[in-house]
């Protein structure tokens, strides 16, 4: 009897700590934030916090700015990392093996260190500028404190990350799939289009959503390398809390950002759930 009771309760006891932590740091703060976003500073109900973000020019500009930055980062990172992953998968050269070992290195460099390193190279008085001065050329890249700077730094982190996901996906494309397509008379472009892409496009979508969602809440990189105005949503949120001390507006913005990410999550889940006939029983 005692043993039976133990058996019934053990799983719950094992789940409890994780569940408690999740309630405490995820669920409760979310509920609290949602409630706060509908209140004024003295606690009465209002929609003004949301209204502000839908009518303010600054907020709208930030949203557009964030969208442009996020989509640019996503598209560039996916293109570069897909090319890299294709090269790593299909080239058998020594260079490919070397890159295969090194490409994850950026992931192991602390974010802030990397950002400062990139800044030192791209800023107007940075390495590019000084190096060109040696040849008498005065060139100011104009990359820093601009959307280009944010995108550049984000590529540093996102290319290896997405290349890792896509490499794993491409490893499921057997050599003989490609070789039998060539044997059948297929050009390289057609092989990509008809054989490789259908086998990996889902993972491309997954990588793209991850990158996109990361950009919506991005803070460190835009804070250090971005312009003052317009700014990324993460910076806007930071200012609401730390500069204006307007916790209710901050809460409303948080909810809006959460909803944006939810959109990404829906795409992610949909593409993961959709199982095609040929994948069944694999």
């Amino acid at each position, binding site marked *: 009897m005692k043993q039976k009771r133990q058996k019934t309760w053990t799983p719950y006891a094992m789940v409890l700590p994780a569940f408690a932590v999740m309630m405490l740091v995820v669920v409760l703060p979310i509920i609290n934030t949602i409630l706060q976003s509908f209140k004024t500073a003295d606690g009465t109900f209002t929609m003004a916090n949301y209204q502000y973000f839908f009518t303010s020019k600054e907020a709208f500009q930030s949203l557009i700015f964030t969208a442009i930055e996020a989509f640019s980062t996503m598209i560039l990172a996916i293109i570069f990392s897909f090319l890299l992953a294709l090269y790593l998968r299909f080239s058998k050269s020594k260079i490919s093996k070397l890159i295969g070992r090194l490409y994850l290195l950026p992931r192991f460099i602390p974010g802030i260190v990397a950002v400062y390193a990139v800044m030192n190279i791209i800023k107007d008085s940075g390495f590019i500028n000084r190096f060109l001065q040696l040849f008498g050329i005065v060139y100011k890249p104009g990359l820093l404190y601009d959307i280009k700077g944010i995108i550049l730094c984000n590529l540093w982190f996102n290319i290896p990350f997405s290349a890792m996901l896509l490499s794993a996906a491409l490893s499921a494309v*057997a050599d*003989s*799939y490609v*070789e*039998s*397509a*060539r*044997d*059948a*008379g*297929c*050009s390289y472009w*057609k092989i990509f289009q*008809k*054989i490789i892409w*259908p*086998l990996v496009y889902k993972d491309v979508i997954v990588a793209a959503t991850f990158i996109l969602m990361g950009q919506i809440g991005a803070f460190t990189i835009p804070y250090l390398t971005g312009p003052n105005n317009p700014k990324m949503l993460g910076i806007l949120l930071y200012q609401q809390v730390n500069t204006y001390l307007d916790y209710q507006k901050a809460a409303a913005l948080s909810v809006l950002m959460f909803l944006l990410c939810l959109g990404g999550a829906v795409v992610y889940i949909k593409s993961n759930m959709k199982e*095609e*006939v*040929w*994948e*069944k*029983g*694999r």
Partner: protein
Amino acid sequence: MSEKLIIENLTKKFGKNEGVENINLSVKEHELLTLLGPSGCGKTTILRAIGGFNQIDSGRILLDGKEIQNLQPEKRPTGMVFQSYNLWPHMTVYENMAFGMQIRKCPKEQIKKEIKKMLELVRMDGSEKKYPSQLSGGQQQRIAIARALVLKPSLLLLDEPFSALDAKIRGQMREELKRIQREAGLTVIFVTHDQEEAMAISDRIAVMRRGYMEQVGKPEEIYDHPKTRFVAEFIGEMNFIEENGSSFAVRPEDVTLQHDQNGKYEIFQMMSLGHYTQAIVKKSEKEMLKVFLEKDQAKGFETGNRVNCIFDRQQEFAARA
């Protein structure tokens, strides 16, 4: 029969020691030639060179009288079937088979007709709408062969196509392949490391070792008259008896046992293998012979009997250094 494929002085090296050197080989029209050898002997290298997947270092490959060694695989009139993962998993059987014909811009009706014909040939009719994951390994390889054949290759290249299948299916597939080859009048190059498979299906076998051709000939010829010690050892079972600096090779079925109280040999082990019995006879710790006995013959012998061995046929080789 005319020469379909001629390979002249083909060399393809990977690094210093691996690869093949100065290979000369010809395959006749409607012939099934097997490249047989242990792994790393270069058989797949030659096959892939014919298919265009290995750029060769030097030499010529002539197919139907035309040099093809510098063509890309997609330009060669060869069809290849790989060991496994042949079919594109995201396409149905029909789509798999239609793919190459669509690239060649064949009319839809013709594609449909050809696929139907080929599926009947490999006895897979009715499976058009299935995906590869819904087929067994043997069925997948049939479709792979059909997919290659639908493009009417001048030469069919098979790279250990049955080695991932289990023994029983493998046996069936051999018979099937032989039938398909006969019915469709195909010229086939088949690569395998399985000597039994090679013996069963080939018109001719090329036995390879470390990048060289040891012997090329009909299966019986290679079995009965191996040119080198390696071939004698590799094909079928073989006993080697070292005597006075030379060694004699005797097939287990070419040994006859005779009861003799003072015989030089003692029966060490008897093992029934179904339709025949395998006996191990021992002269000394070092010298043991394998003997195959007919079921009825075997009844007269028991473990521990002293016997004499009569060699009905033997072949001499230089002793192993």
